[in-house]
């Protein structure tokens, strides 16, 4: 049963600390997305990779957030330094355009709390 795996599921950290969230996309998928779920914005796109190349990270606060794909099996989202306003659920999704449908498959999310 192929699925996107995110770790950790929950993270509580103090303001100013570095946070790293990890994602293992579904094998064979060529796109990876990082989304942040907030009450006001819904699912806000932070970063988007195709074939491991970053195509769009305009939704990400550049001074503190960074997203990378060291290899095809791992995507990371880092926040340094973290702030209380970063508290949210962060979702990773992977996708493959099949029969024209750009379907994205989501992980279960990382719930981040910055105190």
């Amino acid at each position, binding site marked *: 049963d192929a699925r996107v795996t995110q770790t950790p599921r929950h993270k509580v950290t103090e303001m100013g600390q570095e946070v790293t969230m990890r994602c293992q996309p579904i094998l064979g998928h060529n796109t990876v*997305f990082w*989304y942040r779920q907030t009450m006001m914005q819904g699912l806000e*796109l932070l970063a*988007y990779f195709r074939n491991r190349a970053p195509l769009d990270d305009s939704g990400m606060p550049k001074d503190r957030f960074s997203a990378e794909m060291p290899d095809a099996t791992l995507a990371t989202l880092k926040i340094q330094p973290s702030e209380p306003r970063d508290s949210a659920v962060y979702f990773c*999704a992977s996708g493959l355009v099949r029969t024209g449908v750009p*379907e994205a498959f989501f992980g*279960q*999310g990382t719930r981040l709390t910055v105190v």
Partner: protein
Amino acid sequence: DQQVKQNSPSLSVQEGRISILNCDYTNSMFDYFLWYKKYPAEGPTFLISISSIKDKNEDGRFTVFLNKSAKHLSLHIVPSQPGDSAVYFCAASGGASYDKVIFGPGTSLSVIP
């Protein structure tokens, strides 16, 4: 500036009746539209999609209608069931970033038994 809008944050419907969830978009380059369903503490899951060359797509109790001229789509659920209670996200993609999926803010549907 949100490219995909869902103006109703919440909707309450009686079991057995029709649920209609609405979505508007601003980017005329979008040519594929998707609906996702999300339960608490889970990731969103794909529900149904529609290409811009169609105006209707049906899958069981779920039907999506697309009005390109109005840049509007809607998801109809008939009949609504308590298990349909979830947050529904409208999403879109298109143009050069054909595989980049942009989501709306979501509508929380409650189906009352």
